[in-house]
């Protein structure tokens, strides 16, 4: 039906190329080495930090929304460092298309909202499970974390989609406009 193979969700983060490299950069003069280097270094760090924010949200400032935004900013940094890159490449490097990420986020959130009804609980009710894990101590796992995860995924999707549209899309327009002026 479609000419592109759908990518299993489990492989969404499997890079096609090198993980930390920004998008292909054909014009050398446009490259900012400092930024690129910083991006290479910062990108994974910030991603990890975003996951931390997501999880810590229940206990301290943070949560799915700031977490997602921080992760999104990591991608923004990468995009800026990558200079002129096609929007599609940003999408294809991470294989999962941004709309899919958004749809998944929303799906996770709404399913976790509806799921309690299946167990006879009110919609959007949360359940708490406590684990005793040696060395770390008691860990509470709250089902409402799922909503936070949904938010997190969706926000990343949104930011990626904005990069695709406001970023690459506008760039493409600009190039085409310039091409028209230069042409006949």
């Amino acid at each position: 039906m479609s000419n592109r193979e759908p990518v299993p969700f489990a492989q969404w983060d499997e890079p096609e190329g090198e993980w930390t490299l920004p998008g292909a950069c054909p014009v050398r003069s446009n490259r900012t080495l400092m930024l690129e280097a910083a991006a290479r270094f910062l990108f994974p760090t910030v991603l990890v930090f975003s996951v931390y924010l997501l999880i810590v949200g229940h206990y301290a400032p943070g949560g799915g929304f700031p977490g997602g935004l921080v992760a999104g900013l990591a991608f923004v940094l990468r995009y800026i460092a990558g200079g002129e890159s096609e929007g599609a490449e940003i999408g294809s490097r991470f294989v999962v298309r941004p709309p899919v990420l958004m749809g998944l986020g929303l799906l996770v959130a709404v399913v976790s909202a509806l799921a309690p009804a299946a167990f006879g609980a009110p919609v959007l009710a949360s359940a708490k499970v406590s684990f005793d894990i040696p060395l770390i101590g008691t860990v509470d796992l709250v089902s409402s974390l799922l909503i936070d995860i949904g938010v997190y995924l969706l926000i990343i999707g949104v930011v990626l989609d904005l990069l695709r549209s406001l970023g690459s899309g506008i760039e493409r327009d600009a190039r085409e406009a310039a091409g028209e002026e230069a042409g006949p």
Partner: protein
Amino acid sequence: MSTLVTLPVLLPILGAALTVLAARSARTQRLIGIVVLAAVSVVAAVLLVAADRTGPVVAELGGWPAPVGIVLVADRLSALLLLISTVVTLAVLVYAIGQRISDYGRETASTTFHPIFLLLSTGVSLAYLTGDLFSLFVAFEIMLAASYVLITRRTNASRIRSGMTYVIISLTSSLLFLTTIALVYAATGTVNLADLAGRVAALPEGLRTLLSMLTIVTFGIKAAMVPLHFWLPDSYPNAPAPVTALFAGLLTKVGVYALLRTQTLVFPGTGPSTVLLVLAVLTMVVGALGALAQDDLNRLLSFLLVSHIGFMLFGLAVYDARGAGGTALYIVHHITVQATLFLVSGLITRRTGTVSIDAMGGLARRSPALAVLFAVPALTLAGIPPTSGFVAKLALLQAGATGGAATAVVAGFVVLASLLTLYAMVRVWVRVFWGTEKEPLPDPDPTDELVVGTARASRPMYAATVALVAVSTAIAVAAGPLSAITEQAGADLMARTPYIEAVLG
């Protein structure tokens, strides 16, 4: 039962998420949309029966009691409006699908159209059901954001300004709404509507009036109340037919619903409200005169929409059970008929290739079916008996006649606006369906769905329109039970206690 109340909100979101994920299969997307909306219709019908038999159905989300958690409340009014809105949305979806098939073929999927259409339905459902002022804000934002996207999708140079007007005015009203919520919270410390009912009563009268006026302005913009209506006739007519139909049918009415709910529950009046009466008269007259001045069919209908918002404001302004009940009945009728008219207008413009009334003519001979499809809702809107418009107008007039001298005078304006509505419709009839036949204009740019031109209308488009006409007829036939429900709904609104007790226990 309480789970059921959440479904009209959550099911369309679920559907939207699935349609985003199913972005490669148009068939799946169509199926999801129709199934979800049909399911919500059934749920709404069940809720209506339950609310009518046993009182408001309340869902405390997450199991948290109000005012800690958000509550969703389906009482007679909200369940009824939910039902009719969803049915109309479903019909419009079928029409829109038909139009997409005619224009782009069967295989056209979209990550924007289908999900956003469903999310619009979520926003509308939430607005009807929520018992929380801030949640109402969120509902409006979902609904409006979806409407922004639908109205500006694939816009072109000549139409973009209408989208801008719509988006900017709506955003302004949203920020005003947010400000109002902040001010309400500042004065009362709660955003739960039932809780507010008690707390606002404790405020000095001047501040009550201040907050009440703020909500009137805020919701007045969404309801297109004169003098806050300008945006509507400038923006609605420029969207594709199904989008306009949906907006005209639902969005303004959600504004009226919010006015009705907040004014009766939170800011109860003791007698007819002079401010609202004046606004109602202005809305009726300015809207109707506007319609008479138009040459563009869709603009004409948009101005009539404004005019009839005045009818609903009038019922609210009477501030008694009959008035509120009349407004409820009028909303039910008007959602259906206004959507139908815009769908018919879409069929007409596809046939004639123009929206200019002046460029049409003799359509009754060429397309008698279209003539009937137009005539029935046109007469319904004008309130000619025995249509639903007549029944609803009668309810309003009766409320006006018993509400005192001022409301009786304004009832005269209702009648005047009806006459002007009929005149506007007759002009359309005479110029579009009578007279010498004019050649349809060819499509100047077939690639652009917003540039009007003749195009094929597929069968689902006609089926959806006919179905809506049938719904409208059913409203008239079932006026007995329906008006019993709306009258009781009006009494509930005025009594306030059924709602407050259901929410706060």
